[in-house]
């Protein structure tokens, strides 16, 4: 016990001896705190608005005078909301599975196989990262129209079944897998697909997890392309569906905010469970998703 007291005393003495706080540290923490506030405020406002009545919507108070959960009851009892939620979940899940599979396959091939035109293919894939989605929607739309994919699940999903970012991320991770592992498996009699599946993939699990999270979140929040490619309300994804609460005569902000609050739950769960993989994935790839 006395040892604990002694060490606590010495710690305090050390702090006192350090003198006044470093002004740069104060500035750093202030800037960080301001950044955090800027990031968190919209979420807090969204949650606050979701428990407000319409008459209070344009008051900027965070804590409502008359809080209510009627908005949640209304949104959840509206069959359309659950349908859109299901659509988003289905599309995000299938696209994630597909993107992770193909990105890992292509990334592996670009990393571990020597073939003519390898660099050209890699640069071509990488260059698509530099084209904004807003520009890509025109060729996507023309393709969908030509092949009859408009207003279908496949129409929403096809641009995301393989991603340039994911291919780049996986290629970077496969660089860290020593060739000895693959050669040992080759000698043990595995074919190239089995080597990829049984040996290489398990060694890049953190990258796979990070990629799965990126792709899932990207598809969950996608708005522009699903809005363009769908007409039927039954095929709407959640972000598109929420806009139906806004009509010419009125914008039902409390319902939009309630829907948005509910929509963040899966992304929050995914983030909290896998945040260390996201950070590692971003650090490894050297860019943001």
């Amino acid at each position, binding site marked *: 016990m006395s040892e604990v007291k002694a060490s606590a005393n010495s710690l305090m003495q050390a702090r006192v001896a350090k003198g006044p706080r470093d002004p740069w540290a104060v500035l750093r923490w202030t800037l960080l705190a301001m950044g955090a506030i800027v990031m968190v405020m919209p979420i807090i406002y969204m949650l606050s608005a979701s428990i407000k009545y319409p008459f209070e919507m344009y008051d900027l108070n965070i804590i409502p005078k008359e809080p209510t959960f009627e908005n949640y009851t209304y949104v959840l009892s509206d069959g359309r909301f659950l349908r859109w939620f299901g659509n988003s979940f289905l599309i995000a899940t299938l696209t994630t599975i597909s993107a992770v599979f193909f990105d890992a396959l292509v990334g592996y091939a670009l990393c571990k196989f020597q073939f003519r035109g390898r660099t050209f293919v890699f640069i071509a894939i990488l260059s698509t990262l530099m084209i904004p989605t807003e520009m890509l929607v025109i060729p996507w739309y023309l393709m969908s129209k030509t092949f009859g994919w408009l207003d279908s699940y496949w129409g929403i999903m096809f641009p995301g079944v393989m991603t340039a970012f994911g291919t780049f991320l996986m290629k970077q991770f496969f660089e860290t897998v020593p060739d000895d592992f693959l050669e040992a498996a*080759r000698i*043990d009699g595995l074919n190239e697909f089995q080597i990829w599946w049984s040996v290489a993939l398990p060694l890049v699990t953190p990258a796979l997890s990070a990629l799965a999270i990126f792709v899932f979140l990207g598809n969950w929040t996608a708005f522009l392309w699903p809005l363009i490619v769908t007409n039927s309300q039954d095929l709407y994804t959640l972000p598109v569906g929420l806009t139906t609460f806004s009509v010419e005569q009125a914008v039902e902000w409390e319902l939009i905010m309630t829907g948005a609050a509910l929509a963040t739950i899966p992304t929050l769960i995914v983030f909290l469970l896998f945040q260390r993989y996201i950070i590692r994935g971003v650090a490894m790839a050297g860019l943001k998703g």
Partner: protein
Amino acid sequence: MATVSLRNLTKAYGKTRVLHGLNLEIGDGEFVVFVGPSGCGKSTTLRMIAGLEEVSGGEISIGGQVVNHLEPKDRDIAMVFQNYAIYPHMTVRKNIGFGLRRAKMPKADKEKRIEEVGAMLSMTEYLDRKPAQLSGGQRQRVAIGRAMVRDPAVFLFDEPLSNLDAQLRSQMRLEIKKLHQRVNTTIIFVTHDQVEAMTMADRIVIMKDGHIQQVGTPAEVFHKPANIFVAQFIGAPSMNLLEGRAKGQGVEVAGRKIARATGVAEGAAVTVGIRPDDLLVTEEAGSFEGRITVLEPLGSETLAYVDIGGQEVVARADGRNPPALGAVVQLSVAPENLHLFGADGKAIR
């Protein structure tokens, strides 16, 4: 078990040739060590035998069958890699059993085989551990176990001990040698460490710049080196080399006639090689006289660096009563322990 033959084996990367027509016959059950400095082509040769590198020219046969165009899995070989290459996501049991995936045998027999190999390598109690929970030596045993489990015709080892510390390396050397005596499978072992080569091999293949310099038993390459490179590469400390000249049926070094040399033209330059072990510091009149510049006490003996007429040699002195630093001493060598090399670097017999 199988024989391995290399006939005029060449390897080129673009216009750069790295192997220049290797010819070698490896006997059934033989333990052959490829040794040489970095970049000599020993690992490339091994990888070509394994089928991991394409053959640019020549032939490789295993068990009498030309395997140039066979996939690695069809060559009946197993390989142990420098970095072990044991899969970190699998237990020791799964790692060892990985090579049996293609084997058409009942699951119970596979399990039995894994247990047998585990027992042979003293790894039974670690079979359900992951590689991260093992020491370096244990990981190396797992890598060997994975190679053994398939009972291949030829084992290939690519510098498997280079990641281990000195003590563990000597222990694993012994274990691999015992393993060879037990299973008696043909082994081709690559290393850059001449001590490993000397202690393990039935025959040593010494390579330099893509050429085989000499093939022989450890005793042959040590006592009868084919050229200056082999003489210097094998043995620690390296063989002393002294510049001399043929004179009157002998060789004169530092003003003294020390050896007989037949078939060498009068006045021709000759290099005289003397192993440090054969060059003794004595009190009696010896072959050379010189001044001690450095002493290296090793316990049972002391290595003395001696300057003789501007050329430095290493000699062996008593460990208990070493000579003094700076002392002028006599060095003696028995004539039969002298190695003579011509101007082309080849041994003069």
